[in-house]
């Protein structure tokens, strides 16, 4: 076994133990399972274990967790292996998956990425979970936002400024009321946003208000099945229109990470909801 394998072997084994210990506490102490404090302690422990490249200390385990935009190292297999697994399970053409295909694929992704992914959450689903993603522009985060002040660094500006900014706001309006009120979370929501066809979701017309609330900044896992790259995104816009032949859109940062920035500016992705009811899963790439 090579040295690098030592790390992966121990990581896999110890994370499995970590999960067992966590589940044991939840099951054994059902009497306080609704305790906010218990949840914080459990999440704190999980965050510590899933924080790979930060010099964390045991103190972090007792601190209420703050979702941070660091990559989550959650898997025990490589991206290539994810891609190979998906290749075996996906149909040759990009089309809506059958329920059994969805079940098979979500089970595979949940198991290997260690994140529970679902085609349907709280009884709500999108029109499909396998489709063509297209390039979107940046969204204005507040009144007066512009490309010249949109990026955290000059490197980001060099890479992403050329994609431009939409003249209108996202489906939920501005991310913040003003530049002064913009939080790091707002910033990440724009950076890793996707647009999905909310208006085609089964039941949309009958439950517009309820569905809007559900979809607003809802986190989803996107996977490029051709390279196994996965990223946690949030829904911040509705679209694209049916006539475009595309089924969802991604921010420039999302598209760049997934490597979906080929000449056609579109390509297949899988997209599923994640159960993040404790708001502990940060937006951004999953490093495998």
């Amino acid at each position, binding site marked *: *076994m090579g*040295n*690098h394998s*030592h*790390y992966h*072997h*121990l*990581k896999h*084994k*110890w*994370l499995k*133990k*970590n999960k067992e*210990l*966590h589940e*044991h*506490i939840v099951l*054994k*102490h059902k*009497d*306080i399972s609704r*305790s906010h*404090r*218990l949840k*914080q*302690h*459990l999440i*704190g*422990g*999980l965050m*510590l*274990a899933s*924080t*790979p*490249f*930060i*010099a*964390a*200390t*045991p*103190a972090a*385990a*007792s601190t*209420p967790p703050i979702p941070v935009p660091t990559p989550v*190292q959650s898997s025990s297999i490589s991206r290539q292996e994810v891609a190979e697994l998906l290749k075996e399970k996906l149909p040759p053409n990009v089309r809506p998956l059958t329920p059994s295909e969805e079940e098979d694929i979500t089970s595979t992704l949940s198991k290997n990425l260690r994140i529970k992914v679902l085609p349907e959450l709280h009884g709500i689903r999108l029109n499909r979970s396998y489709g063509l993603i297209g390039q979107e522009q940046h969204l204005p985060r507040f009144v007066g936002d512009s490309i010249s002040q949109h990026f955290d660094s000059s490197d980001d500006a060099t890479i992403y400024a050329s994609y431009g900014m939409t003249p209108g706001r996202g489906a939920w309006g501005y991310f913040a009321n003003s530049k002064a009120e913009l939080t790091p979370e707002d910033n990440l929501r724009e950076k890793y946003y996707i647009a999905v066809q909310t208006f085609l979701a089964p039941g949309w017309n009958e439950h517009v208000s309820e569905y809007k609330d559900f979809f607003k900044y809802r986190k989803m896992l996107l996977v490029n099945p051709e390279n196994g790259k996965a990223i946690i995104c949030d829904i911040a816009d509705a679209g694209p229109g049916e006539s475009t032949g595309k089924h969802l859109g991604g921010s420039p940062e999302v598209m760049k990470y997934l490597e979906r920035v080929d000449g056609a500016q579109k390509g297949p992705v899988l997209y599923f909801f994640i159960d993040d009811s404790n708001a502990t899963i940060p937006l951004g790439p999953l490093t495998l």
Partner: protein
Amino acid sequence: MNIKKGTLFYSHLISLEKITIEVNNLHISKEEKEHLLNIASSNIHFAVLDVVLSHLPSEQKETFLEHVENDDHKKIWEFLKEKVENAEEKIIKRSEELLEELLLDIAALKK
């Protein structure tokens, strides 16, 4: 690289020296060592929580978690000494069991 000590109410009871040395002896990157030590710390934290909660009645579990949240070690130990018989021994025993398991996992790599 070392895990910072003295920051949790049970830190003085648990020696992380062995596991730190063994992980540091692995020919893996600094970041990988840090990640493994983070997981080990998290596992110990869960085990300690479990052992304490298992010896408290329902109505006192929340009080314990509140003291831990406030990081008031004096209050935590006053509480534990009153509510849990031989709390220190129980925490030491469970954490040592767990650390032994982790050390065996590392030892198995060398076989």
